[in-house]
């Protein structure tokens, strides 16, 4: 089945540039039976939005693809009501002063992947007066909107706030209302996201009505539907599908976030909060595009959203941060939030000399041009911090912590940290380090350090070890 749909889609794509052949193709494919009308429309939606919306009109009439976006009956004389997205700053939701008053559905809509499309009327409230309510609709002078013909600035030139009608399944506690201000659409039944009855009415004539401000069917809308449409944290769409300036990604803005799509990542949603932080953290240039939904329920109430080049993450004990590039690779390899570093507590910080560090709850990932990227964590992190971190006596780490007999060690530019297993680590450096190593280091008679080497400021240092003290 999918092969047939794909074939149909490919065939449609092939003739997009040759519209005169399109009618024959649509008819042939529809008659063939191997591709359902629904499947054909799905394929057409992929092949081209205009084509999908009104393929015959696109093929037969000398008009642009843009004009066919709005579907049939798009002029004021048709009598149909305009889409809210057209008059509500792109938002596919009821404008202020109107409310969800009723709905119907239309079958075989290319705007919903060939499935049912739900059209929801937003009726005006009777805010200016309450006369005329004997038949549940107040006089038009009471409505908080005025009847106008759609602007010619868009192809959705239908009437705005003119039809005194109510479908009547939603918000029935409102006894008296104004007429239809505008129409909202959804591929999710409105009783799943609004205060509406499940009583279904049907009028297929409106299946292809639309607005240039509504997102067309595709992977992003499919994800939106799977998330519950308007019921999801995304709420209503706030514009059509847009393409990034560099052309690498498409996106749809919603009241509560955004859905991204790239050929490499597919469609992924993010909340407005994450979107804002994503921008703060450098956006696609730093993190790439999202590859999946935010995953919650992690350690310490945390969440993570993965991107092509990193992630954004947060927990109950931390604030939202990103981890990207080499740092992401290393954090991931170390076990991410379940590894020794736990969650990030800061963004990457640049250090003098083109070095950098990113701090985590229990450590850091650090790099300098003279040393490799390394992780310093737990007791090593505590000890390194105590002795002044990269600006202290040890300098930058030259490798990760390694396990040795009875304990662990981590090497730094000017010394190292040693500690017994599951115990504090201590810095050993300078002449004391040389003498200790000459005496066998932790495996020798002195054993492991029990304190940081102390510099007396007069050229001498003292190190205290399990088996004695070295002063050099």
């Amino acid at each position: 089945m999918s092969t047939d749909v794909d074939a149909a889609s490919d065939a449609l794509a092939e003739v997009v540039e040759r519209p005169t052949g399109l009618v024959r193709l649509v008819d042939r494919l529809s008659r063939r039976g191997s591709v359902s009308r629904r499947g054909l429309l799905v394929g057409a939606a992929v092949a081209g939005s205009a084509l999908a919306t009104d393929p015959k009109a696109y093929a037969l009439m000398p008009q642009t693809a843009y004009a066919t976006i709005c579907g049939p009956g798009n002029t004021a004389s048709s009598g149909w009501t305009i889409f809210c997205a057209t008059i509500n700053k792109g938002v596919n939701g009821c404008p202020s002063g109107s409310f969800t008053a009723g709905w119907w559905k239309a079958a075989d809509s290319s705007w919903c992947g060939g499935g049912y499309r739900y059209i929801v009327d937003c009726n005006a409230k009777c805010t200016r007066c309450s006369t005329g309510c004997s038949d549940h609709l107040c006089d038009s002078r009471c409505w908080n909107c005025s009847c106008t013909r759609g602007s010619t600035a868009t192809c959705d030139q239908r009437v705005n706030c003119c039809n005194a009608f109510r479908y009547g399944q939603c918000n029935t506690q409102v006894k008296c209302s104004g007429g239809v201000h505008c129409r909202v659409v959804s591929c999710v039944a409105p009783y799943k996201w609004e205060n509406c009855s499940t009583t279904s009415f049907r009028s297929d004539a409106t299946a292809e009505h639309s607005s240039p401000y509504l997102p067309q069917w595709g992977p992003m809308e499919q994800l939106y539907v799977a998330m519950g449409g308007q019921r999801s944290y995304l709420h209503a769409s706030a514009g059509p599908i847009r393409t990034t300036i560099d052309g690498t990604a498409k996106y749809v803005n919603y009241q509560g976030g955004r859905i991204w799509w790239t050929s490499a990542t597919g469609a992924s949603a993010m909340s407005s909060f994450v979107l804002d932080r994503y921008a703060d953290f450098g956006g696609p240039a730093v993190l790439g595009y999202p590859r999946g939904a935010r995953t919650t329920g992690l350690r310490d109430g945390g969440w993570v959203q993965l991107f092509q080049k990193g992630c954004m993450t947060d927990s109950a004990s931390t604030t939202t941060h990103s981890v990207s590039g080499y740092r992401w690779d290393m954090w991931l390899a170390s076990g991410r939030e379940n590894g020794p570093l736990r969650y990030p507590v800061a963004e990457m910080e640049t250090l003098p000399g083109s070095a950098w560090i990113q701090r985590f709850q229990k450590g850091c990932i650090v790099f300098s041009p003279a040393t490799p990227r390394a992780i310093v964590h737990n007791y090593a992190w505590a000890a390194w911090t105590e002795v002044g971190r990269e600006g202290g006596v040890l300098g930058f780490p030259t490798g990760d912590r390694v396990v040795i007999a009875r304990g662990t060690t981590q090497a730094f530019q000017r010394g190292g940290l040693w500690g017994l297993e599951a115990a504090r680590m201590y810095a050993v450096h300078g002449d004391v380090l040389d003498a200790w190593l000459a005496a066998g280091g932790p495996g020798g008679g002195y054993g492991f350090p029990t304190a940081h080497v102390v510099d007396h400021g007069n050229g001498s240092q003292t190190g205290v070890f399990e088996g004695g003290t070295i002063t050099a």
Partner: protein
Amino acid sequence: MMRRTGYGITVEVPVGWSAALVRRSTSSDTPSDLDRFDAVTPDGAAPDPRDQLAERTLPVLHVSTRPLPETVGDFGSGAVEALGPEDVFVALIEYGSDLADTGLFERQGVPRLAPSQFGTNRMPREIVGRSASQHFFSVGGRAFCLFTVLGSHSRRMGTVPKAAAVAASLQIVPAATMHRRGVSV
């Protein structure tokens, strides 16, 4: 006159008129391709109970002076476009007993139609010359909308009485009786 009865609704259909009393099958509406999508809860939220809600269809009565096409929208799309100046289309649409007797459906009894109730903008979409009226009401614990379209607003004084006679002939079995019969309304 011809009596038409079904779903606890009875109407007297004048000679020469056509009528249809249907309850659209929900099986003809589902499953949609979209209905088969698995709902996802990206934030790990519990499934929403509204996902378990299922659409319902309830009786719709259409009566018209003209022959009714095979496919007519519940509020007459597909039929009202063809009305001539002397034609009338009456629709009785049921909404469900859960909505009856309160709010929008608080009014009791089938309304009496009068020419003054009709307006040219009283339809889902305005069609030049047509005229319509809409009333929400309850009878016997059942919620309805009476939607009437005239072929010509200017001739409403002559055509509204015809529609009013049809509306006045409506008899509706109470919801409790229907429930005892095992019919959900």
